């Protein structure tokens, strides 16, 4: 498992072939947890791709006009309707949480225990506020009569696409918030400094877990980039 410093694997394309044809492990320099997180995220990519694809299909095959998302998701601020205001705020919140998450990963590898835990908590709170705004948005639309089978603004497929895509994304954010709090607690307790054994794994964890969690969180932000572009702006 250990790679001695003298025979470091080659880089570039040569390294690609060498890594994949080696009989130990293909993903050198990557902890197994991180490799598995990447593979999970790849499968998740396909799930969200299918949602966005089915949205594309129903939207481009309907004869009825698609609702104007700019107006549907607009907010009244002092009597002036600002288009997509809530969605813009949600976008900035999610990007900020991605920033604090990146800092947390960095602090974790620098073994700054308290800073890591604090940044993870900040990330979780930003994520929670995102979910809160999404709940507000759902409530608003449901009050306006948007249902999975129809709505007063236009094509009936709008509702099913909206609830399915944003619902699945919101679920991902919610799970992420939960895990952020759990890992923040474990970091704060010093689990990864003391080598305390995990509840499920019965093995000591390390700060690599913060990076795997970070990958998941950035992925949630990444999916939002695509939802924002295709569903809200298109």
């Amino acid at each position, binding site marked *: 498992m250990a790679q001695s410093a003298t025979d470091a694997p080659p880089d570039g394309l040569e390294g690609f072939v060498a890594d994949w044809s080696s009989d130990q492990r293909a993903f050198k320099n990557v902890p197994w947890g991180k490799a598995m997180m990447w593979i999970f995220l790849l499968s998740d990519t396909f799930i969200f791709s299918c949602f966005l694809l089915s949205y594309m299909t129903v939207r481009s095959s309907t004869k009825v006009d698609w609702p104007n998302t700019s107006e549907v998701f607009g907010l009244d601020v002092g009597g002036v309707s600002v288009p997509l205001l809530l969605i813009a705020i949600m976008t900035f919140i999610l990007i900020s949480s991605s920033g604090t998450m990146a800092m947390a990963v*960095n602090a974790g590898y620098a073994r700054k225990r308290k800073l890591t835990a604090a940044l993870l908590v900040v990330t979780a709170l930003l994520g929670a506020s995102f979910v809160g705004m999404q709940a507000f948005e759902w409530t608003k639309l449901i009050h306006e009569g948007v249902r999975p089978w129809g709505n007063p603004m236009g094509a009936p497929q709008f509702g099913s696409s909206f609830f399915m895509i944003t619902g699945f994304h919101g679920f991902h954010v919610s799970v992420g918030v939960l895990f952020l709090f759990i890992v923040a607690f474990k970091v704060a307790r010093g689990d990864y400094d003391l080598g305390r054994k995990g509840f499920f794994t019965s093995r000591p964890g390390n700060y690599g877990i913060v*990076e795997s969690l970070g990958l998941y969180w950035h992925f949630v932000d990444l999916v939002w980039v695509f939802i924002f572009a295709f569903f809200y702006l298109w």
Partner: protein
Amino acid sequence: MAQASTQKLEGQTHPIKTYLVVWLWLFVLSAGSYMVDYMQFQGYLRWSLILTFMMLKAGLIVAVFMHMKWERLALSYAILLPPLLVLVFVAIMVFESDYTLLTRVLYFATGTPEAAGE
């Protein structure tokens, strides 16, 4: 077994400044894509701007925040190449939805059964 605290971690560390610069850029690009809607750009200009901002943001997140830029090619290719196949799926569904729309236009033109020739 080595203690977790003394174990060598195979993690990556990069200067904080890198993250801050990318963070700032993500804000700028998000503001840009929001402005596309705020300024009410339409047509090809709107779509190309949306896609450009989207790809730039996605690229920055994957490359820097998710550290893909610094990974070995064995991992990068395994993760980044398969999603490209989604584009094939997109092409298939474009044809499919075009066909569905065509049949709807032909047979449900006015929304009455008489008009559909029944």
